[in-house]
């Protein structure tokens, strides 16, 4: 079919108009275009002006906990940088005025199903939590005989001193392993370790389950930005550890890293969930793959980490 020149010309004009209309007006200031910054860069901003930020949406939360004002141990460098959300300077001192990603996240686009398991988006409701189903579990005592109990060779070993086990708690926000929560706090943040997703909030580690989240043991190697108030500093030889809620940490520049319980460490409190084991005729506690020997420390009931083979 022969198309007359007049039609060709008209079509060309229409095409040029359409192209001009659909071409986005963007600023290509850096390696990526920044259309949302258009007009913002030319506005004089007072350094002390309060920035208007929307309330954090679920898509933008996920940061670490607030660092509490606990004294730093002697071994930690005084100049270690820390991230302190509750004591943070006003938003106007942020290096960029604060994140301002307001865009619609429910875009009309198809989403692929990623082979990697997706985390469950935390529900931000006030639904009631479910009590720890293990709380009333009868604790039986395992009997083991002819077992070797090792104390650290370079740490003072305290003599065995039996005292009854009274599970400890670390406040209203802390929950023992096995506890199930329907929702998590807004502050909970997500991280992955060894291809597993975790949520962390106030010294407690969760994994998603059907209908909620369950408290799990802290994954060794995880790094968190801060620990809640009430953590203990535990000296083992020349090393310092931190202990909170049944978990041991070492201090890093960027936060605290979960480590295995160091042999010889002495703690005052063990969380709910420990089982008793009769080893060579003496009662030990077993919690989170760690054996604890009841001892007396400075006149107080305490527990010392030992190895049992």
């Amino acid at each position, binding site marked *: 079919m022969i198309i007359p020149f007049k*039609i060709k010309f008209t*079509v060309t004009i229409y*095409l040029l108009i*359409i192209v001009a209309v*659909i071409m*986005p007006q*963007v*600023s290509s*200031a*850096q*390696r*990526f*275009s*920044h*259309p*949302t*910054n258009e007009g*913002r*860069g*030319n506005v*004089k*901003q007072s*350094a002390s002006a309060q920035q208007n930020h929307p309330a954090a949406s679920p*898509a*933008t*939360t*996920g*940061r670490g906990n607030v660092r509490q004002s606990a004294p730093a141990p002697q071994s930690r460098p005084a*100049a270690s*940088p820390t*991230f302190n959300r509750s004591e*943070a*300077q006003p938003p106007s001192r*942020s*290096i*960029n*005025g*604060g*994140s*301002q*990603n*307001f*865009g619609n996240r429910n*875009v009309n*686009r*198809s*989403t*692929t199903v*990623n082979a*990697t398991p997706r985390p469950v988006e935390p529900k931000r409701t006030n639904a009631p939590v479910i009590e720890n189903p293990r709380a009333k579990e009868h604790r039986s005592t395992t009997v083991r005989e002819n077992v070797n109990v090792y104390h650290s060779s370079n740490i003072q070993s305290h003599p065995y001193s039996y005292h009854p086990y009274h599970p400890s708690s670390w406040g209203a926000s802390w929950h023992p392993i096995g506890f199930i929560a329907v929702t998590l706090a807004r502050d909970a943040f997500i*991280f*992955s*370790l060894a*291809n597993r997703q975790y949520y*962390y909030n106030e010294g407690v580690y969760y994994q998603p389950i059907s209908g909620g989240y369950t408290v799990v043991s802290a994954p060794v190697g995880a*790094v968190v*930005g*801060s620990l809640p108030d009430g953590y203990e500093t535990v000296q083992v030889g020349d090393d310092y550890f931190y202990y909170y809620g049944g978990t041991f940490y070492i201090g890093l520049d*960027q*936060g605290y890293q979960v480590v295995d319980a160091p042999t010889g460490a002495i703690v005052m409190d063990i969380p709910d969930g420990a089982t008793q084991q009769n080893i060579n005729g003496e009662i030990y506690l077993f919690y989170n793959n760690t054996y604890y020997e009841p001892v007396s420390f400075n006149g107080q009931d305490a527990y010392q980490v030992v190895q049992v083979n």
Partner: protein
Amino acid sequence: MNKKLFLIIFICGFTTHIKAQSSTIDTVAVSILDNMSAMIGDLTSCSVTVNANYDVHNQELGLVKRSNESQVFLQGPDKLLIRSEGDKGDRDFYYADNILTYYSPTRNHFAKIETLPTTVGMIDTVSKQYGILFPAADFLYPGFVDDILADAKNLIYLGITKVGGKDCFHIAGTTSDKTFQFWISDDAFSLPAKLVIVYTKKDLNPQYEAVYSDWKINPVFPDALFKFNVPPNAMKIKFVPVSKRK
């Protein structure tokens, strides 16, 4: 009448074709980038080391890889120091009190321009007017994630991989003129660890790659760090705007 009908059908078909182009945006990738952007937005100061490698077109050799290492210091919304060493020689940028100063220790010359009162505003304006690309600057834009979404045809979360021995979330995407990959650290701070860009519309598809390491969060820097003092015998030069370059 037939001609008008033909035109209407043709235009409708064309616009339908534009709308039919689909894109894939992974909400997990968006969530990870949102976390990163929120973290950066809450920083009152920081420093980072940026090791960058980038392709430069050479007429005889094709693409030649160049590199530089930069130490970037930021304090508040209005102070910046960048110290770079690399194939273009040593170059420093000081920004404070609305003035950006460029200094070359190699050549002992400097240039100053008065600019906007915020670091992001300065970066945006200076890069457009003078073509200066600052390391890690894209991540500083408050609307970084929205900017990515505005342009991205695809944005996919690929899983966890390692950069510098540390686990990172790996995200990839495409726009009309490039492909890009982010590696965001899988820890409490969710900061950028690596960036790779491939420019698909340029000859030979040059690449830009940057590794971000040694992040320091909210340190306290003395104000003097960001102030430039003219060294003895230094020569003052002028920035040449992009529009006036031959």
